[in-house]
């Protein structure tokens, strides 16, 4: 049962980070971030991580998602023209993570690890390709959550704190020059 929950959590996390990668609107990005946080928390809980750490991860991800609604592109704007490479990258990332962790993907801990690796890889891909400050910050939060899932309680809490902390940074492009 826990295996199925962990795999479902990993799938939800992948869906969330894929949404984050193909969204050019603040709502789409926030939904992707919240979904990824929910999926990662589910997978981590199924893997037997401490409940406090899992709750912190979920809270940090949700806080970051809500805070990202303050600025950025209007509306949802999911899958605008030119999103195909990002969608392909999302598929390749899940295949790559599955290849690396193929020996333990059937275990809850393995599924949680695959979820963390996929979220981290796709969030990094978003950071490396976007020119928008708010999108980079949203992906940075996802990156912290993904990396946090790869560790124990310390990693989960650190990931949550950093995700929420990045949410507090102003994402408005106008703040670019002044900092």
């Amino acid at each position: 049962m826990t295996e199925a929950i962990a795999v479902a959590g990993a799938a939800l996390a992948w869906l969330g980070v894929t949404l984050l990668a193909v969204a050019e609107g603040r709502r789409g990005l926030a939904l992707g971030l919240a979904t990824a946080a929910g999926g990662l928390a589910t997978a981590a809980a199924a893997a037997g991580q401490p409940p406090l750490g899992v709750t912190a991860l979920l809270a940090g991800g949700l806080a970051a998602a809500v805070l990202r609604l303050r600025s950025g592109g209007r509306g949802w704007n999911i899958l605008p023209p030119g999103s195909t490479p990002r969608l392909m990258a999302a598929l390749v990332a899940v295949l790559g993570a599955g290849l690396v962790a193929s020996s333990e993907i059937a275990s809850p801990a393995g599924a949680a690890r695959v979820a963390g690796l996929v979220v981290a890889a796709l969030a990094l891909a978003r950071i490396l390709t976007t020119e928008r400050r708010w999108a980079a910050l949203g992906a940075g939060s996802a990156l912290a959550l993904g990396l946090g899932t790869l560790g124990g309680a310390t990693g989960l809490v650190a990931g949550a704190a950093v995700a929420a902390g990045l949410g507090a940074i102003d994402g408005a492009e106008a703040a670019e020059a002044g900092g």
Partner: protein
Amino acid sequence: MITARAPWRLPVPAPALLGLAAAGAATLALVVAAPLLPFGDGLRLTAPGRVLLLASAVALGLTIVLAPHRVPRWELVAAGLGALGGQALLLAVADPLAVAILLVLVGFAFATRPSARPFSARARGPAFAAVLLGVGWTFVRMPGPAWVGRAGALALALGLVAAAGLVPYLAEVDPDEPASSSYVAWTGFFGPALALTLPGRLLTSMSAADAAVFGATLVGLGLVNLAWGTVGAWRTATDMDAWRYSFLVDWGLALVGIGLFGRDGFAAAYLAFVALVLVRLPLYLWARPALLGSRPARLGPLNVLLAVLLAGAAPFSGFPVRLLVLNVATQAAWPLAIPLVAAMLMGITYAMRLARTLGEHRGLAAIGLWVVLGISLVLGVLPGVLRAVAGL
């Protein structure tokens, strides 16, 4: 054209600076007081880490008060406190994965500093390094085929180099960008903190085969950076780039020292990083007015003395580092000493060029230059004391 002529910065709001300074000071206090707190186990400053933190605080104080700046000093105090807090966290956090996660926060927070380059471009380097470190750490601890652990060790070594912005991840540096906003801060301030403490924490959890990959990668990258920095600082067209490449030379020696795993090797890296923070970085700040063309470059008697320092010759701070690295290299594999000696000798060719750019300073700035020279002399003459303080 309009963009090119636009001012590179707008004033940073005072509340933002106050918040940055308060966050930095609070983090620093937390790290220093951690042994007295219930969760102190997660925050442990090693002895070399304590020395580097102290050296960084001294370097910040010295440069803020005495170095010539375009940025208001109160803004530098705030940014400096924030940076010191970030460095203290990177030095003290015991869990390597948490360090990788914190690198994301420090990198993104640093990218909010005023700059003409976009935020997203400046956040990429630390984010990439964080992923390499986080994924590498996961791989080396993951049960499975041997290649996964070796790939993890490779990623960890590359992550350290990426965080510092060295070859092959040489970050773009805008000459007009102040040092407090440019990637030089990663090469000369945050990078040394990571490279000084992380290898010790990583090696305790690695198998011998993974550790060999980690060490060999560091030695290889060290030699590449040493060669790139030496030839680059000598042959590059601009003095700004020459300074930048000179940082690679120090890093190259430190990486070779770490990668060879010997006690003397770690000591060499430790001395190199302390000198990088206390000598190389401040001297770069003193050279900035000439690099930006606001002061003429010239070669006075003090500059000749500084050229000796920058060449890594005795009795200054670079000399014990070179001696220790050569000692470890000859013990491990003597042919390794050939490129090291060649790079050390070639260091003389660009030292004079760098020293010229330090120009002539008056008043507080001149005093500061003499203070840096004195610090370098102390580091060069008393490396044993410095090693003893750090338990190396």
